[in-house]
């Protein structure tokens, strides 16, 4: 990349500089004997053009909006428009959550992100025994289309894009969204949004699985195929590293395991007869913005380059949009401390900044109080304002990929790319991501990293301000947001009403049609749309599929 003469001169000067430093270091050593980031990548004292001497700029870095997209997926990035500010929210009933959404939209939020409660995510209605204690707790509870109609009341679905964190029952919630839009007079072809729909990371890191891998992959490819015709602007999957990182992985593992999952989905879709350029542009991703600022910036850049090479070289995609990794980012929930919670505002701010410097397409910033409970309104407001401060005040948005070309950032990007590629090779050897999860490999890698991280904190090798250094006496926080246990009872009442009002014969017929389709190969999506429109409940639809598909039995990786 540099003139040979220049390189020679820099080498000479670098040598002189190092020699001069030696005696000084002997007298006054650095803070640590070895510096490394969370991925265990050793960090040099300083990076120079020598580190980039062998690199091929156009091949590895290139220009924004061009392969391999290291510098960003759009040519103008935030000079054109800012990322979508999208706060993940949902609690209690659809009525409560609808109010929070309208508050967030009034505050200048530009997209919605739905958090569902655990019974909804695992396919139980609120009246299921296992739903006791959980209804409305970590998200909004949705039992039927009725709730979904309330959730989006007075929110124009032709204008707002919605992301839904829903995996095993993603087809059902998408069907409900389509049905609500239809009632608003919005055709499915005009809908924009995302369903998470990423089952593999549920097995390896997040835990809200229902069905075994094979039928789960089939539902996913049914969704790909249905949406390519009926909901063409929809992101049919959000392949998520976020939860892998939250579960304890390193940055390199986050990239590797996420893209390995991505490979498995692409393979499944191709096996189902789909063309890679038909569904490829609708694949989206979701990453974590963790503490190590520069490692994170490099991680996002490396992930873009790696996915582009995988799609082009491995899957022979032709459409550049298939090669672009478009991603959402959330700041790292696991780095929030219960101690000195206001410090979390600052942690979130620089994590968010790393996502912006890494070229994210949308962003959620965590609230300072999330180590205690669901966020309160003031905390959410500060979190959202943090994004607005970065966008409108910091100036980092006026030049595309402003850290690109930094010797250190480019070196780190390359290092993460190489190390994640090596992991993907290893997963290929194990038979792909689904097999690697079945063998417990990915879970073990993640939990080993989590344990190492915790031990580092306990041995004071890793400092967490307020936890193992700079502690202060403080009072417990008050007025935390709590979900009334009565939410479950009111949902049960609603369900009783629903089952009285609707045409039960029709629901029964559609559910048996669904079971028949599940036993065969027909696309399940159109029948699921019919089922939700007839007010079949989420639990009933999932039960019908459970009968045919069975339930996933996790592998143990402890002991």
């Amino acid at each position: 990349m540099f003139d040979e003469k220049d390189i020679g001169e820099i080498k000479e000067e670098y040598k002189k500089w190092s020699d001069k430093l030696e005696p000084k270091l002997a007298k006054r050593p650095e803070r640590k004997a070895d510096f490394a980031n969370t991925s265990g990548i050793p960090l040099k004292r300083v990076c120079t053009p020598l580190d980039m001497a062998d690199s091929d700029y156009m091949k590895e870095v290139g220009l924004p909006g061009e392969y391999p997209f290291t510098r960003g997926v759009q040519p103008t990035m935030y000079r054109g428009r800012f990322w979508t500010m999208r706060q993940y929210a949902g609690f209690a009933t659809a009525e409560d959550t609808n109010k929070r959404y309208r508050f967030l939209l009034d505050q200048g939020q530009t997209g919605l992100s739905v958090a569902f409660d655990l019974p909804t995510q695992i396919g139980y209605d609120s009246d299921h025994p296992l739903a006791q204690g959980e209804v409305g707790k970590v998200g909004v509870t949705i039992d039927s289309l009725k709730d979904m109609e309330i959730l989006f009341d007075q929110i124009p679905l032709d204008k707002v894009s919605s992301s839904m964190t829903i995996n095993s029952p993603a087809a059902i919630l998408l069907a409900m969204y389509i049905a609500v839009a239809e009632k608003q007079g919005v055709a499915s072809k005009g809908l924009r949004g995302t369903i998470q729909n990423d089952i593999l990371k549920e097995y390896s890191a997040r835990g809200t699985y229902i069905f075994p891998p094979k039928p789960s992959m089939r539902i996913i490819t049914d969704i790909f195929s249905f949406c390519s015709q009926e909901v063409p602007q929809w992101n049919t999957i959000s392949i998520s590293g976020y939860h892998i990182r939250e579960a304890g992985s390193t940055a390199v593992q986050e990239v590797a395991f996420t893209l390995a999952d991505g490979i498995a989905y692409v393979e499944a879709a191709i096996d189902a007869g789909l063309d890679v350029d038909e569904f490829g542009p609708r694949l989206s991703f979701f990453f974590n913005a963790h503490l190590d600022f520069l490692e994170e910036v490099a991680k996002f850049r490396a992930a873009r380059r790696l996915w582009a090479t995988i799609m082009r070289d491995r899957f022979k995609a032709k459409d550049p949009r298939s090669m672009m990794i478009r991603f959402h980012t959330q700041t790292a929930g696991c780095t929030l401390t219960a101690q000195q919670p206001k410090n979390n505002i600052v942690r979130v701010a620089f994590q968010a900044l790393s996502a912006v410097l890494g070229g994210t397409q949308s962003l959620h910033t965590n609230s300072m109080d999330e180590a205690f409970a669901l966020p309160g309104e003031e905390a959410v407001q500060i979190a959202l304002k943090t994004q607005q401060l970065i966008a409108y005040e910091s100036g980092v948005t006026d030049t595309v990929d402003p850290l690109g070309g930094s010797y250190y950032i480019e070196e780190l990007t390359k290092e993460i790319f190489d190390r994640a590629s090596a992991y993907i090779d290893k997963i290929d050897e194990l038979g792909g991501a689904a097999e690697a999860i079945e063998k417990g490999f990915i879970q073990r890698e993640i939990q080993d990293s989590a344990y190492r991280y915790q031990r580092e904190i306990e041995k004071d090798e890793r400092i967490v301000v307020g936890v193992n250094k700079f502690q202060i006496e403080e009072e417990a926080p008050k007025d935390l947001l709590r979900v009334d246990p009565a939410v479950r009872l009111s949902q049960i009442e609603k369900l009783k009403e629903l089952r009285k009002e609707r045409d039960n014969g029709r629901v029964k017929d559609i559910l048996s049609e669904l079971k028949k389709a599940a036993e065969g190969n027909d696309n399940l999506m159109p029948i699921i749309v019919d089922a939700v429109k007839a007010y079949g409940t989420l639990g009933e639809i999932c039960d019908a599929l459970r009968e045919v598909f069975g339930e996933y039995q996790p592998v143990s990786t402890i002991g």
Partner: protein
Amino acid sequence: MDTKRKIRVLATKPGLDGHDRGIKVIANALMDAGMEVIYTGLRQSPEQIVETAIQEDTDVIALSILSGAHDFLFPKIMELLKGKGVDDILVIGGGIIPDEDIPSMKEIGIAEIFGPGTYTDDIVKYIENNLKR
């Protein structure tokens, strides 16, 4: 307690939440400290937890929950233990449990609640010093 027998701990996730990073870290730490750990995995009902603890004859039940469902599930587990006449198992809890809930949790017999930022060494010591048999 028989000094040759290792301390047996049931590490478990009641309810539906999938956040198992904490409990797995603790399970590893307890094993490193010489204890025997039975980890149940996710989504255990109160009935399953109590049954497993009795069958496996564990000295400790370590409950981890981050969804906020502790207010229903912890009392349910304690009630079932009481119903079975079990009073010599040390029950501890952790996860996202608001401070203001801790007194009521202790009242029903959860010996200690360990929140975010807890050192695993402290949990090891706590168990060693507070066994009920």
